[in-house]
């Protein structure tokens, strides 16, 4: 049997992010999160609603990358950007975003690095939808390159709300949730007494110490850290069909 590939493990872990979500808009941003979302809907979460990456809601597993152009689309609804805010603010959505920095409470930065908003050392995306997503509905995160530069003690600017800040908001923070953080090394949650980030599982071939060493804050460790599950044969078939060009292997190379 050939060795399982890390990117395929990540695809399954990203699919698991949506388990139990039911009929909501699953809105994974980026190639591997999109593969994960499509995989979840094709298997254990058939009621998920997903976009074509632009202004349409599509019912079928449209592939990612260049293959999307020639793929048939089963359009179920029109969802221009303005309608997207209606979904965001209704709360019926779960997004996966890619943070530039994230701290132990889940405060996330996608905007810029530095100490001066008017002259950042490095400009990234800007605030985009981070504040609205994190105050309105579930937000999970995907980090393809787990390092102490991403998992930091303190983010330079809080764009996505973490658990400590959501708690301080009282009722206004009631819809805030960060179900999972998935990286190329493992899967994390916030199921601790103080809602700080906890290692939940490590991917095959990764040790707990590997994860600790790549994390810039003191990480809570589950008492029973599992190994992240590998794809079933059925799941592997779906992953291959959604990403026929193997873009996921460029995003997460094998170790």
């Amino acid at each position, binding site marked *: 049997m050939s060795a399982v590939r890390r990117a395929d493990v990540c695809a399954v872990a990203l699919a698991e992010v949506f388990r139990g979500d039911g009929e909501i808009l699953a809105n994974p941003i980026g190639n591997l999160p999109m593969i994960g979302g499509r995989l979840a809907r094709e298997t254990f979460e058939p009621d998920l609603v997903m976009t074509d990456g632009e202004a349409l809601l599509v019912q079928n597993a449209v592939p990612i990358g260049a293959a999307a152009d020639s793929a048939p689309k089963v359009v179920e609804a029109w969802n*221009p*950007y303005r309608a997207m805010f209606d979904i965001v603010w209704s709360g019926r959505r779960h997004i996966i975003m890619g943070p530039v920095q994230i701290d132990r409470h889940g405060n996330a930065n996608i905007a810029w690095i530095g100490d001066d908003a008017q002259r950042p050392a490095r400009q990234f995306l800007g605030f985009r939808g981070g504040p609205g997503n994190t*105050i309105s509905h579930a937000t999970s995160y995907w980090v393809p390159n787990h390092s102490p530069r991403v998992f930091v003690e303190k983010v330079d600017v809080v764009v996505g709300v973490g658990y400590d800040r959501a708690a301080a908001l009282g009722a206004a923070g009631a819809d805030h949730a960060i179900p999972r953080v998935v990286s190329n090394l493992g899967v994390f949650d916030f199921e601790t007494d103080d809602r700080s980030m906890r290692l939940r599982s490590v991917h095959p071939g990764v040790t707990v110490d590997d994860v600790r060493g790549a994390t810039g804050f003191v990480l809570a460790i589950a008492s029973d850290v599992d190994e992240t599950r590998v794809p079933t044969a059925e799941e592997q078939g779906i992953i291959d069909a959604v990403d026929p060009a193997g873009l996921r292997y460029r995003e997460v190379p094998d170790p």
Partner: protein
Amino acid sequence: MTEDGVVARLSSGMTIGVGGWGSRRKPMSIIRAIARSDLRDLTLVAYGGPDVGLLCAMGKVRKVVYSFVSLDSIPLEPHFRKAREAGAIEVEEYDEGMFLLGLQAAAWRVPFLPTRVGLGTDLLTLYPALKTVRSPYGPSGEPASDEGEELIAMPALKLDAAIVHMNRGDAHGNGQYLGVDPYFDDLFLLAAERRFMSVEQVVPTAELATLGPVQSLRINRLMVDGVVEAPGGAGFTSCAPDYDRDETLQQRYAEAAGDDDAWAAFVEEWVNA
């Protein structure tokens, strides 16, 4: 009217809203005319793309009000990034949805709209002009029995001028989009004092409703002061279904951010030509 005619009705120091989204349906022929003009110290308000990047690179911009500036297929706009990292421009940052509310408030002529978006983030500390408001009502709009919820008061994003690009229009200012997304072009126009629309093709009014469903007639002449016929006017950004993004040209534009000679050549060929 012409692109230069639009420029003649703008002045330095103005706050200008630009329609489209990222590198999609941007009124680039008017943006290029602004780039060639002697206008300066502009404040740009946009779901930003190469409109913002080009005018930053041409030294036309004092301030950008933004939530992102992206070329879509190239996620980070390199000219905007360069201007930001040099501290060459001032910014005011918002969430994408707050930005919508700001345009909507200006369009409806109210000073702000309330939202939870922004609570818990660093926006309130980074931008102290952004205020909160206490709801006079309970969670379902009922009379408040005690102190109501604290919300962000997103200020109206009032514009001196707005420019948008549509697929079709008539000479009177009725405009039509034929792609999948209207973006927020109507709101930019409604939020502005002086309103300009370029279109791929000007057609007789009677033809408009034959070219697409009536829902595609998103812009009406109450919203527009001047129409420019500009075939290819959104290029190199996308203007589906008339044309897709010119990825080759966009790539050249982006790469030139790192090379002064390449940039000078690009400006000569694409902006000044």
